[in-house]
C-alpha cells in the first residue's frame, strides 16, 4: 500500500510539475510582443499575454452544459489545482456538489508535455503492473493526432504541439461525450471565444465558501458515537494533523481503525486510487501476496465508495474519507463512515 501511495504521490507531483511547466509553453510566443501597442508597460504586456492564454476561451458554457446535461453552478473560471486564480492555466467548470471538469490547453510545447505526461504514466503503469490503466491510447477518431484515457474518465489529446486535457471530478461522462468536448476545443483553437475566465474567479471564490469546512479529523465522530459501533475504545482517539486512530477490542486481539479526511479536489484522486487498487490484485498475486479485490461500498450517505477489505474509501461533496481498518468487518466500517461522512 505504501508503495502505491508513494507512486501516486509521485504521479501527482509529476503531473503538477508538468502542468506548471506548461505555463511556460502556453504563450503563442512569450517573447513576441510585436502585436502589443508600443510604449505600454511590461506589466500591461504581461496582462495582455495572460489574457491571450485564457484556457476558458475554448469551450462555450452552453456546449459544456449540453454535454454534461446539467446547468453549471457558476460561470467557468481560471484556476490552479481547482483553486480560483485570475492567471490560472486551467479552466474549471463547476456543477452541483462540486462536481467539475477542468480543461488545460497548451497551444505550444504541448507535445513535450504530452510526451512527459504519457512517459510518467506509462512508467507508473509498468511499475504498478496496471497496463494502460493510467494511460490508455484510445481508438477514437477526432481532431487530434492521438488521444489517451485518464484514470478519472477524462482524456488528454495531442495534435501537433497543441495539447488539450480534460479531467473529470465526480462527473460520470461517457468517453464519447468527453471526446465531443475535446473536439469542440480543438475546433475553437484558432477562433477563441469571447470569454474571460478571470472574470469568473470572484464568483468561484464566493462559491468556495459553501464547501464543507476542514475540521480536525477526530472531531468528526464523538467517542460515544464511535463506541456505540466499535464497543469500548482502549483509549482516547489519537489525532495527528491529518488522521485519527481509534483502538478497540476485536474478537481475538486489539484492532485499530484509522482514517484520513481530504477536504477538497479529491474526485480525481478517488478515481485514480480506485483504478490502481482495482489493478493491484494482479500485481499482488504476481508477488506472491494475498490479492485484495475492490468492491463497491453499500449504499450510504456518501456519493460513492469502495473497499478492498483493508482500505475503505468514501466521497461526498468533494471530500474524501479514507479508512484503514484491517480485520474490521465491512458493516462496522460502514457505520463509522456514515457517522463521519454526514459531518461533511
Amino acid at each position, binding site marked *: 500500500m505504501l508503495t502505491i501511495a508513494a507512486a501516486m504521490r509521485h504521479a501527482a507531483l509529476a503531473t503538477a510539475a508538468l502542468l506548471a511547466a506548461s505555463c511556460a509553453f502556453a504563450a503563442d510566443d512569450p517573447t513576441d510582443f510585436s502585436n502589443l501597442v508600443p510604449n505600454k508597460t511590461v506589466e500591461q504586456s504581461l496582462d495582455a499575454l495572460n489574457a491571450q492564454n485564457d484556457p476558458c476561451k475554448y469551450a462555450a458554457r452552453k456546449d459544456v452544459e449540453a454535454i454534461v446535461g446539467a446547468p453549471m453552478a457558476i460561470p467557468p473560471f481560471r484556476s490552479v489545482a481547482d483553486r480560483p486564480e485570475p492567471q490560472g492555466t486551467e479552466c474549471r467548470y463547476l456543477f452541483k456538489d462540486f462536481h467539475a471538469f477542468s480543461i488545460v490547453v497548451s497551444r*505550444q*510545447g*504541448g*507535445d*513535450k508535455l*504530452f*510526451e512527459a505526461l*504519457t*512517459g510518467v504514466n*506509462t512508467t507508473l503503469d509498468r511499475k504498478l503492473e496496471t*497496463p*494502460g490503466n493510467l*494511460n*490508455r*491510447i*484510445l*481508438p*477514437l*477518431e477526432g481532431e487530434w*493526432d*492521438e488521444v489517451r484515457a485518464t484514470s478519472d474518465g477524462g482524456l488528454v489529446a*495531442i*495534435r*501537433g*504541439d497543441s495539447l488539450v486535457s480534460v479531467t473529470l471530478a465526480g462527473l460520470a461522462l461517457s468517453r464519447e461525450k468527453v471526446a465531443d468536448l475535446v473536439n469542440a476545443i480543438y475546433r475553437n483553437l484558432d477562433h477563441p471565444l469571447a470569454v474571460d475566465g478571470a472574470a469568473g474567479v470572484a464568483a468561484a471564490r464566493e462559491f468556495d465558501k459553501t464547501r464543507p469546512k476542514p475540521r480536525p479529523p477526530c472531531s468528526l465522530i464523538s467517542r460515544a458515537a464511535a463506541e456505540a459501533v466499535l464497543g469500548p475504545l482502549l483509549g482516547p482517539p489519537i489525532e495527528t494533523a491529518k488522521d485519527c486512530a481509534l483502538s478497540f477490542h476485536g474478537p481475538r486481539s486489539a484492532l485499530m481503525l484509522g482514517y484520513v479526511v481530504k477536504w477538497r479536489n479529491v474526485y480525481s484522486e478517488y478515481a485514480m486510487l480506485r483504478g490502481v487498487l482495482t489493478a493491484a490484485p494482479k500485481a499482488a498475486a504476481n508477488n506472491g501476496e494475498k490479492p485484495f479485490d475492490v468492491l463497491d461500498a453499500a449504499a450510504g450517505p456518501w456519493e460513492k465508495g469502495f473497499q478492498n477489505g483493508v482500505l475503505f474509501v468514501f466521497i461526498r461533496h468533494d471530500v474524501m474519507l479514507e479508512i484503514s481498518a484491517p480485520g474490521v468487518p465491512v458493516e462496522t466500517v460502514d457505520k463509522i463512515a456514515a457517522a463521519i461522512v454526514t459531518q461533511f
Partner: protein
Amino acid sequence: VQSRNLKCAFALALCTIAAASARAEPARIPLQKGLVLSYSGFASEIPQQQTAGEMERVVEFLDRTAELLTLQIQFTDYAGDPKLRRQVLITRTVREKDMQSAHKVLFRFLADDPSNLPGLTLLHASKALLHDLVADGHSDFVFGNGPIGASGWFSALSRKYYRGVLNVVEPTVPIEILANGEKIAIPTIHVHGVLEVGDLTSDVEFWFSTDSDNPLIVRSQAKEGNWIQLVRADFPVAPAPEPPKAAGEKPPAPAPTIVEAQLAGPQCRTTLHGVYFDTGSVALLPASTPALQQVADMLKQHGDWSITIEGHTDNIGGEAYNLDLSNRRAQAVSDALSGQYGIAPAQLKTSGFGQTRPVDSNETIVGRAHNRRVELARKC
C-alpha cells in the same frame, strides 16, 4: 515419379513464361493476404556491429477484407542496447476508408497502441494522398514518427506528429526491388517536405509507389541520414485456371510448386524465397511459415529426396562473420523443418557459403538483399 517429373518440367516452363510476361507488364505489388515486404535501411540509433547499421524489417499482410487491412510488422528491437535485442511482432489494422482518404502516416508504433488507430495509414500513402500529389504537385501531410530522424519503428513510450506540406520533386522515379525473386522496377513519385512539430523539424523525403491500388512507401529518407527502403516483395501468385473437368473425373494431383519443379529440373537447385531472418541473426521470422510449410510438404511427398540447405550472405560484416552466419542460418532452416514440420533429419543437410557465391552486386541495397538467400540443392 516420371509422370510427376514431367509435370515439374511443364510447371517450370510455365513459370519461365509467366515471369517473362510479368516483366513486360507495369511492375505492381498486389496488396493482398500473404504479401510479405522486406525493408532494408540504416538507423543511426541501431548499434553498428557487423551490420554497419544496416537493418532489415519485415511486414506480413495477414488479411484484407472490404473494411480492414491486417498487417504484422516483424523485426528486432534493439532498444539502444544489443543485450536487450528481442524479436517484436506488432499486429495492426488499417481501415479501408483510411487507405482511401487519410493524409496521416504512422511510422512509429508504441507498445500500448490499440490494434487500430483511425484516421491514418501505416507505412502506406492513401489513394487520396497519392492523387493530390500527382494532381496538384503537393499535399498536406502528417507524419507520426519518433524524434528527429529516427527510423526506429518501435518505441516503448511516445511519438510525435509532424505536420507540413509534401511537394513533388520528381513525378516518376523507378526503384528496383526483388518481387518473388525477380528484379523489377516500381514506378514511384518522389516527394519532399519539411515537417514540424513545435520547435522540431523533420526534413523528409518519400518515394511512394504510383500504383493507386497499393501506394506503399518504397523509400523514406530523413535529412539526418536515416533511411529505409523496400527491397523484397514476396506474394502468392494465383494458380492458372484449371481446364473444365468431365463428370466423374478424378481431381488432378496438385500442380508442383516452383520450388519442387526447379528441384526436379536439370539444375536440381532452387532459391527458397520467403525465408526471413532477423538482421544478422538466425531467428526465423513468422513470415517464413508458408515457405517452410511448402518445403516440408514437398519433402514428405518425395521421401526419397535428400536436399542440402545452403546459406548465403551479402558481404557486410566480413568473411568469417558471414561464413558463420550462413552456416547457422542453414542450420536454423534445417532445425525448423525437422523440429516443427517433422521432416526426417536424414533428408536434410546444411552448408554455409557466406559471401563467396554472390548472385548480384554487393554495392546496392537490392543486390545485397538478393545475395542474402537460402538455396536448396537436391542430390541428383
